[in-house]
């Protein structure tokens, strides 16, 4: 089989870019061709202008893509120099984006699904939940954040038609106090699921993966790695596999079967 390349370089312009929480921003970008190509769980690699000494692109997943409007919705945390620079891009400014990168969620009809998100892992999880509802599944969503002001996605979870939405905060400033995994244990005890999807801090996803495996429920996890190109050219985004060796986060992932991954 001949290898093929599906990733392209596109221009984008910013329609809006505003804070929606503490260090959490929501950007709507216009990039009509890319908006028509992206599948939930895939990601893009964005060149953020403003500092020529920072050459690496910013890989980001997305919360929603509207092929009709030609727009993509990003929700991201301004945690490093690059994402802080991204947060300063104003409406009308533009740059280039590489995408669509990687493989998204594997969405198929089935039974009840549970979507578990931590922090800024929420955007791809919201995209997954929307796709799973569209595939005819009942979907429950657990959203966790450190604090209330860092939480994003609750309204989106309700709007997409989630059956149940559970919010946790580490400090108890909103919703249930504690971690998403504690809420997940309770839901697993109450209901039968046949799929879990998750994205968030690695330690959280490892916990989610363990709980899903113990309950014999399939689990897909969207992983994050330090990443350079995003399209399989540099081999820097390796993910250790339980069976030994590595897979590439940008080419084999970012969505992996959780039981494959050496957490």
């Amino acid at each position, binding site marked *: 089989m*001949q*290898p*093929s*390349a*599906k*990733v*392209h*370089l596109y221009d984008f312009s910013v329609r809006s870019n505003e804070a929606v929480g503490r260090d959490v921003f929501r950007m709507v970008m216009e990039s009509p061709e890319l908006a028509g190509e992206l599948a939930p769980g895939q990601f893009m690699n964005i*060149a953020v202008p403003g500092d*020529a*000494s*920072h*050459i*690496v*692109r910013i890989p980001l997943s997305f919360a929603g893509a509207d092929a009709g409007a030609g727009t993509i919705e990003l929700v991201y945390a301004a945690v490093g120099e690059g994402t802080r620079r991204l947060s300063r891009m104003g409406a009308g400014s533009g740059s280039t984006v*590489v995408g669509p990168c990687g493989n998204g969620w594997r969405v198929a009809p089935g039974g009840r699904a549970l979507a578990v998100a931590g922090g800024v892992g929420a955007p791809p999880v919201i995209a997954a939940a929307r796709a799973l509802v569209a595939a005819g599944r009942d979907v429950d969503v657990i959203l966790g954040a450190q604090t209330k002001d860092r939480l994003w996605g609750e309204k989106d979870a309700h709007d997409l038609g989630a059956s149940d939405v559970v919010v946790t905060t580490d400090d108890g400033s909103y919703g249930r106090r504690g971690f998403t995994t504690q809420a997940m244990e309770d839901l697993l005890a109450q209901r039968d699921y046949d799929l879990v999807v998750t994205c968030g801090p690695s330690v959280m996803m490892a916990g989610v993966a363990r709980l899903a495996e113990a309950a014999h429920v399939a689990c897909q996890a969207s992983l994050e*790695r*330090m*990443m*350079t*190109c995003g*399209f*399989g*050219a*540099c*081999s*820097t*985004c*390796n*993910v*250790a596999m339980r069976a*030994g*060796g*590595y897979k590439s986060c940008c080419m084999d992932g970012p969505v992996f079967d959780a039981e494959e991954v050496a957490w």
Partner: protein
Amino acid sequence: MVSKVSMAVDLGGIRMKNPVNTASGTFGNGWQFEGFYDVGELGAITTKGCAAKAWDGNPAPRMCELPSGIMNSVGLQNPGVSAFVASYGEYLAGLERRGCRVICQVAGHSVEEYVRALELFEELAPFASGFEINISCPNVSKGGAAMGATPAAAAEVMAAVRPVTKRPIVVKMAPHDVGEIARALEAEGADALSLINTIPGMAIDVRTRKSKLSRPTAGVSGPAIHAIAVRMVWEAHKAVDIPLCGIGGVTSGEDAAEFILAGATAVSVGTANLVDPTAAPRVERELEAWAESQGVSDINELIGAFEC
């Protein structure tokens, strides 16, 4: 616009239609870039380093950003020559037919492993126009940079691989003692030299006191090392007569032109491929425009034309 300048160059028997090559490890095996442009337009590509048997490479994290560059510790992850050819041989043979020279990079932990890997390439990769022996990877514990650390060690590898193939052999050099090591490699029959590989560096997370990558040291690349690379190409140019491929922080035609003036016959685009996937053909266009602005009819007139 039809260029008035002849851009074809000969890198030690690898006849390239223009001087632009790609640095191994920054270009996958070529096909990843077909969604961005016609890779067949490049002078050559150099494939990811490949050993006789598969290597896992280093644990994560393998990359961190630095001012005007990156540092990587991939550790030559590769599937082994047989699997490499099975996966990409058909594509690479097609790329050769499209006029882009394919240079396959050869990795090893020991002299014997380089010989074995090159023997496999010689047998399984008839499409390759030449081979690049990587004796300068800073990210592996055995072999890699140690194999090219001294003139004697470099000469030993070169003497051992020379009888394996009649096709051109390029040797990728580490960023130190380039004059002496270049002379040793030339004496053992190297057809061309490529330099520089990444420069060993460190990045420490001062909060945890640990390396930002999975190993204490890793290789620095990108615009940050360009000036150092130009100086080393100039040193090698003064030391040997075989052609050179300049590598290090090329992001524009101007960067490439500096290498040509310092004595390089060809130029590889490396880290820039990862941040601007269309960098290599743009560098070629800009290099061609520069050559034309210099009033020459052949880019070869500009090789080593640095005035001092």
